[in-house]
């Protein structure tokens, strides 16, 4: 295929796909809506294949570490074992039940769930040390941030109202008024920014998502 087609084909696909769904969002034409519905099912299935990239990338990195016996190669071995073990179990040995298989659920509940939630919960420790070491009343603005944070922390846990009953309503007011105003301004701004980015992507003015050399 010629270079020109190679370059423009993805841009044309993006443009058509984008217009197709934008039109569908605002127009009520049964046949057209049905077509877009099928198109979305099509995209849902196609997008599911994107996981292959992560799989192959990780396999390549860790197989290399393993074969070259780099430092920590046994971790790579564990990673590959976990990755292929769970995959083979879920896809081939679960008898078509996939994630609903009881043995699969066992590994999911006893390995994946504790690991994910424990790694996430480390943030609790970090937030304590960061609050202590980095959270400073450097300026008037930072002080406002600090005071507002302390009020909210007290107001949303049982201990706050136990000390001072009014702190609950004050927290509710902060959430309902300044918080809403600030977040709303940000949201409107971000929405416009994304909208403008979307226009550029659809027009082919922004091609980063297509990879290098697009």
């Amino acid at each position, binding site marked *: 295929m010629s270079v020109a087609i190679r370059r423009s084909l993805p841009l044309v696909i993006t443009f058509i796909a984008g217009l197709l769904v934008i039109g569908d969002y605002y127009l009520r034409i049964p046949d057209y809506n049905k077509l877009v519905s099928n198109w979305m099912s099509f995209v849902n299935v196609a997008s599911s294949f994107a996981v292959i990239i992560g799989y192959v990338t990780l396999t390549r990195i860790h197989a290399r570490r393993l074969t070259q016996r780099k430092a920590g190669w046994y971790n790579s071995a564990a990673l590959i074992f976990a990755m292929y073990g769970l995959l083979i179990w879920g896809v081939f040995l679960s008898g078509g039940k996939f994630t609903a298989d009881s043995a699969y659920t066992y590994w999911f509940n006893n390995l994946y769930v504790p690991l994910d939630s424990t790694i*996430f919960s480390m*943030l609790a420790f970090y937030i304590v040390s960061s609050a202590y070491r*980095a959270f400073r009343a450097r300026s008037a603005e930072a002080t406002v941030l600090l005071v507002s944070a302390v009020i909210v922390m007290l107001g949303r846990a049982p201990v706050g109202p136990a000390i001072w009953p009014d702190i609950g309503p004050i927290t509710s007011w902060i959430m309902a008024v300044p918080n809403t105003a600030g977040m709303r301004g940000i949201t409107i701004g971000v929405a416009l920014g994304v909208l*403008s*980015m979307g226009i550029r992507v659809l027009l082919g003015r922004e091609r*980063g*998502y297509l*990879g290098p050399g697009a």
Partner: protein
Amino acid sequence: MMLATLYMSVKGIRKPTIRKIAGLDAIGEAVGRATEMGRPVHFTPGIAGLGTDTGPQTLAGLSVLSHVAELAAKYKTTLWTTIRIPSVQPLAAEIVRQAYVKAGAPEAYDEDKIIFLSDTQFAYASGVVGLMHREKVAANIMIGGFWAESLLFAEAGYLTGAIQIAGTAQTSQIPFFVAACDYCLIGEEILAAGAYLSKDPVQLGAIWGTDYAKAIAIIIIGVGLVLSLAGNNVLWKLLSGPLWT
């Protein structure tokens, strides 16, 4: 209207200028200090996928990366770039390579310093934390879409004593960047920063266009507030009713 401003900017009919963005000027200072200390710089464009509505943040991060890489090449400082989204990796590598070529130091470019760690959020996060500790980074620049890992990064950067410049449009994470980093770009400032650095007419035109849209929002809210306080909700009805059928 956005199309019109974009068109005018691209065709060079009017070149919009971007106001000063404080955090950006600090990048030179941060890279410079890392050079003096002989320690590396770490950059991450965040963890947002390109095909999502948070993708623009990653692209803004990549614009900043180009600037950072150029400075690093000029000062001959090691630059580590960590990636969470597999498809961003080749993109970032190309940007860094070009920046090194532009700075006249293509031989200093090292592909292995732009690393894909994992596409799982926390696995990526712990990879970055590990790298920052191991390499003792002296400047940590984070521009892009960040979620819960923001605090981990900021804390790790703090522990290694790095100058930290951060920016994200994820509202729930901005407070940590404000609280823990030396300079923070708030929300959309990162998108403007991308345009400011690249001087790309397309991006500049886009910022210009959104400014007009914001002005319209401001006017509608102003008029609408006066009306609604006077007990008239005609504008509200217009916005929430007949526009959508």
